[in-house]
């Protein structure tokens, strides 16, 4: 199971358990309250009945006394006396029946009550015995003298008065007990109410503790749904719900960082894709340009060879013209070769297969040869080619002769291409342990848009050219431990390209693999 869900369930289970426990306590409390209240109510009713009965004693005692006195006065018969006395007895029996006061167990009452009850019983016994002994069973004539009857009446009144008093004491005691009980009941009720409210508040608090964070988490999920991955749920407690909130927040963080990572990867992929597309586009463009550049020198080779053949057939070919045609054919063949070499070199460089076959060779001689080819390319009426060789006749370097020739040819071709009129000056000098070659022209100069990326692949200054010559030249020169640079002339006319090469003389020729 998902650990997050497990945590949610665990957190819920614990809090729900707490709530269930509280609900159980609450139910217990309500039931207890019910029983206690019922008990108090029934006790109250019993005590009320007892008070009624005990109160009735006063009247019944008076009535019994009255009937007794009437009998003594002869104004009533014994039956009425006995009836009144029996009612009183029945009432007292009712109070004291079975050792309880009208259903209220005496044992549950304070010990005073049994004493009060005993007093009532004994007072009644005295009163009753007086009636039984002195009156019941005697006829009217045997009651004695009026003085005796008077004394008897006084005795009866005194015992009745005792009975009334002891009954009153019982009534008062029961009343005060009932008052106490009712006060206790009120206090108990208040306590129960407070307890109930407390437990209810606790339950509500616990429920809110579950519901609030859950509602906050729900709010958070809806925020996340809207894409707000910066949303955090405030952590308010250190318990399971706090842990849940914490875990939820770290889940959001994980999701956010995952999404951010995905976005970053997607962006990278997009950039890489764009780069690939751009590279593909550049490649297509390069193929078109390369095809154009390769077809161009083929034109003079093809056209002039055919012309040469045709003129020979017709015997209309002066020697000077033949020379011119052959020179042009050779130049363009070399041009084609250089172009082809440049294209192959780019492929070799990209596949790290460019191999330099280094030997000791003379830089001055390499340049002189390249200059001869260049002279055939320029329009001598428009451009002057000046060559200043080093005063030391030869400058020995360890280099790949063919590659170095390629560099010089590239630089000279560029100078010729961009100089329709003016001059091209080639200088070769020795500077300490390096040779410096400088090719300075008075042509159109380097366009500002390409100045910063002059030696990058496919960068061209004009409507023609493959943009490979300088790129390859830089790599070749650097692979020989030299440096190459190009800049516009300070006088604002034309550009200068120069490179340096270390003048190291080795006795033994060597092949060097160069990874570029």
């Amino acid at each position, binding site marked *: 199971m998902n650990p997050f869900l497990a945590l949610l369930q665990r957190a819920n289970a614990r809090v729900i358990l707490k709530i269930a426990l509280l609900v159980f306590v609450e139910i217990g409390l309500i039931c207890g309250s019910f029983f206690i209240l019922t008990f108090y109510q029934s006790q109250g009713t019993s005590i009320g009945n007892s008070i009624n009965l005990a109160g009735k004693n006063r009247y019944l005692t008076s009535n019994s006394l009255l009937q007794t006195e009437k009998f003594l006065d002869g104004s009533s018969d014994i039956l009425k006396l006995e009836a009144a006395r029996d009612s009183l007895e029945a009432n007292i029996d009712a109070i004291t029946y079975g050792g309880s006061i009208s259903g209220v167990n005496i044992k549950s009452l304070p010990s005073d009550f049994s004493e009060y009850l005993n007093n009532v019983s004994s007072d009644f016994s005295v009163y009753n015995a007086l009636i039984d002994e002195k009156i019941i069973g005697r006829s009217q004539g045997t009651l004695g003298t009026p003085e005796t009857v008077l004394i008897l009446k006084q005795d009866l009144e005194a015992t009745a008065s005792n009975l009334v008093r002891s009954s009153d004491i019982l009534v008062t005691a029961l009343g005060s007990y009932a008052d106490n009980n009712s006060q206790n009941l009120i206090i108990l009720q208040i306590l129960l109410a407070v307890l109930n409210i407390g437990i209810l508040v606790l339950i509500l608090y616990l429920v809110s503790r579950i519901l609030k964070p859950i509602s906050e988490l729900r709010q958070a999920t809806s925020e996340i749904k809207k894409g707000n991955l910066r949303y955090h749920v405030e952590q308010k407690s250190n318990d399971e719900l706090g842990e849940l909130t914490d875990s939820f927040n770290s889940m959001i963080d994980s999701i956010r960082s995952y999404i951010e990572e995905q976005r970053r990867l997607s962006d990278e992929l997009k950039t890489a894709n764009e780069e690939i597309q751009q590279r593909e586009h550049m490649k297509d463009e390069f193929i078109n340009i390369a095809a*154009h550049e390769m*077809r161009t020198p083929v034109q003079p080779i093809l056209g002039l060879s055919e*012309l040469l053949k045709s003129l020979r057939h017709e015997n209309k070919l002066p020697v000077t013209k033949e020379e011119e045609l052959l020179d042009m054919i050779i130049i363009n063949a070399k041009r084609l070769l250089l172009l082809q070499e440049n294209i192959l070199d780019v492929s070799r460089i990209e596949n790290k297969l460019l191999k330099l076959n280094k030997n000791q060779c003379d830089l001055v001689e390499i340049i002189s040869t390249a200059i001869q080819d260049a002279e055939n390319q320029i329009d001598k009426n428009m451009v002057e080619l000046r060559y200043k060789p080093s005063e030391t006749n030869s400058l020995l370097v360890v280099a790949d002769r063919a590659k170095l020739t390629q560099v010089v040819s590239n630089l000279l071709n560029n100078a010729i291409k961009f100089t329709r009129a003016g001059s091209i000056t080639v200088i070769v000098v020795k500077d300490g342990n390096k040779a410096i070659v400088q090719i300075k022209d008075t042509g159109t100069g380097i366009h500002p848009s390409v100045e910063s990326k002059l030696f990058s692949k496919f960068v061209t200054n004009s409507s023609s050219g493959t943009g490979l010559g300088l790129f390859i030249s830089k790599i070749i020169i650097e692979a020989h431990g030299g440096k190459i640079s190009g800049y516009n002339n300070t006088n604002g006319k034309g550009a200068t390209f120069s490179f340096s090469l270390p003048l190291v003389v080795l006795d033994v020729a060597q092949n060097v693999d160069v990874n570029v």
Partner: protein
Amino acid sequence: MARILLVDDDKDVGRTYELILESHGFDVDCFTDPAMALEQFKPNLYDLTILDIKMPDPNGFKLYDQLKSKDSKIKALFITALSSVESFNTENKEVYPIRGQRHFIKKPLGMDELLAQVYTMLVPQEEYANS
């Protein structure tokens, strides 16, 4: 004999066409700078112009438009080493054969093909229509 204006920014290509055409009796004025060719252009002098397309400003198409504005009857034979001329044909002109007016062919072309194209272009339009 017909007089031809030849503009190609590649000196050797221009010289090749010039030598071939001159060997067949044409009068050829050859330029490597299209701006200079435009500057020195004389209306009603040329029977045909042979123009390269990919040249520093103006390119072959633009040059043709400007020559046309100076000489409405001018005919042009475009010769290019480009695989596609779409990027230069900004006004989306129909550069492929409209006989007698302008025509588009690809480099490199042999001597006979060049001459055949030139002769075709030089046939007056009405004559071509009748043939």
